[in-house]
């Protein structure tokens, strides 16, 4: 424990500082702070889920730039599944299922057919854009809403409880849970050890008796369900409609979050929150008024901040070494 603290003291120090600052802000500006934290998390939810998709994929050695497309397809399927069936459950299943199928498509083309992973992702994105706009029918509505869940006890915590554990839909809770679970799984379970090995050095995993292809196939496919949830969140939770291009580049932002988070789930969660918070700040600058900065410029704040933070602080982080490369056995 002590060694762990020693090793991570910079991270811990910064984390503590940020937390203290957050609480100071929370109590000092109580009129706007809670809503800003709420907005930050609201913005971050789909990014967290989508970034996890990227993390799982790349940790297994498969670059996934098709997250945008996966989300779009799932948002589409979820919304129309629910609208046509009249059941939210059916919609959710359709969305998650579509995420899985899209993940399976990426997995199969890249792992089995060894298609270039970037190309496969781009294909997925274009297919999703094409199909979801080509077959879009306007004027459908959802039969219900995804219920909000309050977590007893946790919701009482000032700031944190309010932001994460009350008045949030089930998907938001799943996002937190998923980040924690994927983190623990990745670094503390057999599956995680094998997944990381496959993403770092697949031939080592292969010679240790691990079926590289199968693990990659399974991981990339299953991660699709998280992309499905992220998509569902957009069309069935955050808004109650499906629109063309509703993902609005969030799948790509998620990739940036993944890299900012150094391919670690919990760090990606934090980075998504950071990004969401700067977004909230940008909006708040407009809402509060009195600043003479045009909204087009304040709107760029999150992106500028990301670049500045990365340039100043993050430095080089190494991604999984084998990400992007199909694993070719010796005699193939």
């Amino acid at each position: 424990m002590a060694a762990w603290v020693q090793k991570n003291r910079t991270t811990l120090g910064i984390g503590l500082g940020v937390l203290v600052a957050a609480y100071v802000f929370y109590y000092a500006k109580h009129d706007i702070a809670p809503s800003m934290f709420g907005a930050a998390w609201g913005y971050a939810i789909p990014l967290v889920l989508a970034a996890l998709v990227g993390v799982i994929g790349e940790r297994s050695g498969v670059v996934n730039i098709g997250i945008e497309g996966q989300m779009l397809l799932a948002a589409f399927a979820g919304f129309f599944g629910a609208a046509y069936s009249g059941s939210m459950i059916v919609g959710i299943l359709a969305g998650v299922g579509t995420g899985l199928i899209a993940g399976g498509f990426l997995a199969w083309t890249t792992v089995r057919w060894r298609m270039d992973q970037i190309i496969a992702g781009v294909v997925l994105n274009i297919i999703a854009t094409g199909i979801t706009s080509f077959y879009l029918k306007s004027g459908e509505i959802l039969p219900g809403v995804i219920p909000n869940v309050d977590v007893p006890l946790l919701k009482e915590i000032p700031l944190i409880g309010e932001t994460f554990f009350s008045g949030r839909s089930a998907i938001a809770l799943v996002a937190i849970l998923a980040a924690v679970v994927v983190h623990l799984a990745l670094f503390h379970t057999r599956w995680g050890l094998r997944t990381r090995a496959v993403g770092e050095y697949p031939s080592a995993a292969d010679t240790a008796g691990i079926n590289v292809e199968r693990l990659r196939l399974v991981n990339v496919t299953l991660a699709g369900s998280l992309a499905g949830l992220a998509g569902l969140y957009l069309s069935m939770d955050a808004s109650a409609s499906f629109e063309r291009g509703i993902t609005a580049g969030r799948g790509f932002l998620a990739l940036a979050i993944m890299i900012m988070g150094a391919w670690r789930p919990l760090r990606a969660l934090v980075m998504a929150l950071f990004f969401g918070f700067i977004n909230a700040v940008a909006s708040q600058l407009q809402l509060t008024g009195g600043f003479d900065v045009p909204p087009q410029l304040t709107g760029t704040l999150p992106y500028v901040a990301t670049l500045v933070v990365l340039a100043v602080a993050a430095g080089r982080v190494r991604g999984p070494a084998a990400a992007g490369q199909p694993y070719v056995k010796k005699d193939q």
Partner: protein
Amino acid sequence: GCGGSTGNTGGDSTDTGSAAAGAPTDDSKCADAEVFCIGLVTDTGKVDDKSFNQSAHEGAKAAAEQLQGYYKYIETQDAKDYAANMQQFTNKKYDVVVTVGFLMTDATAAAAKASPDTKFIGVDQGYDATKVTEKNITGLVFPEDQAGYGAGYLAGLMTKTNQLGQVLGLEIPPVQKYAKGFEAGAKAANPSVKVATVYHPAGDNAFNDPVWGAGQAKTQIQQGADIIFGAGGNTGNGALQEVAKSSGAGESKFCIGVDTDQWDTVPAAQPCLITSAEKLITKGVTDTITTAKDGAFEGLQTLGQAGLSDFHDFDAKIPADVKTKVADIVKQMEAGTLKTGVTL
């Protein structure tokens, strides 16, 4: 080819579409005087956008039915295709071409010059009389500020928290006019009211980002707003839906739609939607097409109507005196006795 000139393999169709019985079934004879053809070109939007493209589309479709005409549209994909897309219609000698959106102003004026036999209706387009001298073109404009003013006035009277919010699309004139009108109306009704305003920053999805709109509405509600004006295509619709989902929707929290009566186009917003700041594009387009068929346009600029749409289920919930005051204000604006004072 085996598909015939339109390539339709569906064979002989039961006409539920745009053409009424007795109307032409294709556009091969548009050049004939007795065959009336209407075309519509969107500005990189779709005709099902629940907003102005859709309204214009419906207006043109209605005109075709009423006038026994033929109607087709093209959804522009790329701003550089405006001219080519209009040309599709002028090549076939369509009688009227409706272009939707103020971004097409210049392109429409140029097309009107090039095709004097076709009449052009530019929705939301204001032409510079010193440059455009053609008679076959009219810009159909609406006093968005008046619609916004009316909505703001209603909101100013209804708010309990004295805090209103606006979730807006891109910061461009039609949107700004709504927004500034709304703020002016609200202040006129209730001087102590505060209006929080947020525009979508930028990007090609500014009118198509309901998730962002919903997030903004949520923030504004948390910061005390009890009535949200969502004006920005699907982005604004996202805000309406968010209010509709929030606790107290329809009781203590309300939303106001834009452009069309969103009671119909965004049913999900019904729990909170007290009214919409409407510009009657559908009616305006139908009327202007009818004028075009009958003869000449009234002028380079045609002024459409704007106002508040029906209160629907909230008719009973809105206090009678509020309704009277709002109706009065709307009347004054129509009569021209009340100016919104909005300038850009």
